[in-house]
């Protein structure tokens, strides 16, 4: 057993463990943290496949930005977890049964040996260039059309989010940045001359 295979099993174990924890942990914050573990293990596996760029992007974008955002959202929401999980134990045996049968079928049909993936492209195949170069070249030449289409899909996402959440309700207190900036000193503070008050606290004659 080579060291690469050992490393693969190590990372794969934690990836699967993290995925299981995501769906079984009671505390949503813990679940998000296990998702981070899954992503990190997957990034390590990609690193083993010599896809360094994708591995780093996964960590920077998903773990660094998306998951932190997720964590904020989960912490802000007041989720009652227990109610959503009531049926879980009841359905668990059936779920496990179905999953076991599916797994058995897959293993039987494919044979364990056939599941071995082709070896990663060696440096010679890649022409000695970093895989950022390869990804960039493929994205902007052969995959240009899908790349642009993906950009349009993101636009749809924005339009849908705005259409579903933006409400113009009357009587809502908005901040108007333009008016805030344009305000002049005399609008802000009004000096009123008042006669000085006689006496005060603890100044009894």
């Amino acid at each position, binding site marked *: 057993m080579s060291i690469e295979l050992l490393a693969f099993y190590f990372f794969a174990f934690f990836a699967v463990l993290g995925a299981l924890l995501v769906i079984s942990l009671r505390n949503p914050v813990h679940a998000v943290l296990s998702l981070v573990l899954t992503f990190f293990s997957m990034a390590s596996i990609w690193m083993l496949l010599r896809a360094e760029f994708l591995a780093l992007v996964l960590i920077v974008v998903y773990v660094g930005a998306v998951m932190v955002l997720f964590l904020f959202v989960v912490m802000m929401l007041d989720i009652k977890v227990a109610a959503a999980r009531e049926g879980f134990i009841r359905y668990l045996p059936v779920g496990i049964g179905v999953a076991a049968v599916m797994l058995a079928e897959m293993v039987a*049909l*494919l044979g364990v040996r056939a599941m071995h993936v082709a070896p990663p492209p060696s440096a010679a195949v890649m022409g000695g260039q970093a895989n950022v170069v390869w990804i960039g070249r493929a994205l902007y030449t052969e995959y240009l059309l899908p790349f642009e289409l993906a950009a*349009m899909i993101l636009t749809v996402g924005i339009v849908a989010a705005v259409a579903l959440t933006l409400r113009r309700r009357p009587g809502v207190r908005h901040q108007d940045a333009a008016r805030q900036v344009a305000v002049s000193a005399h609008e802000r503070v009004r000096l009123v001359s008042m006669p000085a008050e006689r006496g005060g606290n603890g100044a009894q004659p």
Partner: protein
Amino acid sequence: MSWNDLINVLPELYLTGSICVLLLFDAFAGARYRNAMHWLSMLVLIVTALLVVAAQRVGPATAFSGMYINDALAGLLKLFSILAVALVFVFASPYLRMRKLAAGEFHTLALFALLGIMMLVSAGNLVMIYLGLEMLTLSSYALVALDRDSPRATEAAMKYFVLGAMASGLLLYGMSMIYGATGTLSLAGIGATLPMSPHYMLAVFGVVFVLAGIAFKFGAAPFHMWLPDVYEGSPTAVTLFVASAPKLAAVGMALRLLDLGGGLHPLFPYWQDMLAVLAVASLAIGSLVAIVQSNLKRMLAYSTIGHMGYLLIGLCAGTSFGAAASVFYAIAYVLMSTAAFGVILALARTGFEADQIEDLRGLNQRSPWLAGLMALAMFSLAGVPPLFGFWAKLLVLQAAIQANLLWLAIVGAVAAIISLFYYLRVVKVMYFDSPAEDRTLIATSDASLRWVLSLNALALLALGVFQGPLLDWCLRGITG
């Protein structure tokens, strides 16, 4: 990328640019120009259709290194999708105005969905299929949820979204297996390398997952659970959209993936049986469960499931005649469902959806013309000769018999007879029941809706009598 590439995708490029302009127009023009949004969208559709026709002259060709296929089938499906979206805009316009739904977003999201459809039916690569499909479904989820104050619509959108995301995941998983077996994402490449692939069984696994994804998009049983809820829960204008153009996209996607020589065609013996099971299940559920429905939109949803069963029979045959028959069926279904939902939209007004079968009681006495149009749509959906729906059914059954699938054709014929019952019930309610006293049915006064709806329903008769040219066009689309 060359000029040739750009000329081939010109319709899509134009549509993309116009959507962006329309988005800005809607954001800055304000509520006074809502009607302008409608007419501008129609203009965009007309120009896109003209560009599709023009692009056909360049083809058949592939562009962007095989990502995009410009052939007769793509042209046919695109033109009818544009027609369907135009019908949706005309029929939905009074409804959106009365309900004060966000008309601007409705138009832009529907056009985005159309862009997804056009990319999907032209896809020459698994990546393009997936992205086109996501574009279509993402816009559809948002459209279903557009009526934010209705809990039913929100529930429907949620169900649609969760199940749709699951189906997309299955599809993607299957695609990754096929990629693992063949080492290529291009459909032509998959068709070429699959027969010699050492990982043949892996590809068969992939086919199972891909078929699950396709069946979900069709709404074929047992992947139909979302369909009745979405049809019933969403605003009728959106139901009309979901029931029309996306079905053409689904048949285009299925043909690109399974048939037409490339793609997964080498695995035909495997997927033929699976499709036959899906078809029989859809026919059974579609014809039996629809009988007990009292909601008209829900009944039409189950009828859709049944119709998708017929469409799958055509695909099952695996011949080019069968493929042409299923394209013909998809076009027929789209025109029939726009007519049926158009009548519901013509009767709906503020606070009254006209979506119960009981609501149509005595429609003939109130508005004989609308009742006649609805009867035409119902007879056509049921497959009564000489209407459009009859020829569609006849062609798929004929294709099944030619492919030695006599039992499948018999199942289809039996299902057609059972489903006749619930279509005729609508006709009976309209013509032989007396109108309810508490409610008066008032037909819409919107002139363009009345005229276009009449044309749509009469087209069912006209295309039934002169079905030849359309069938020739479908056959040309398949054989190239």
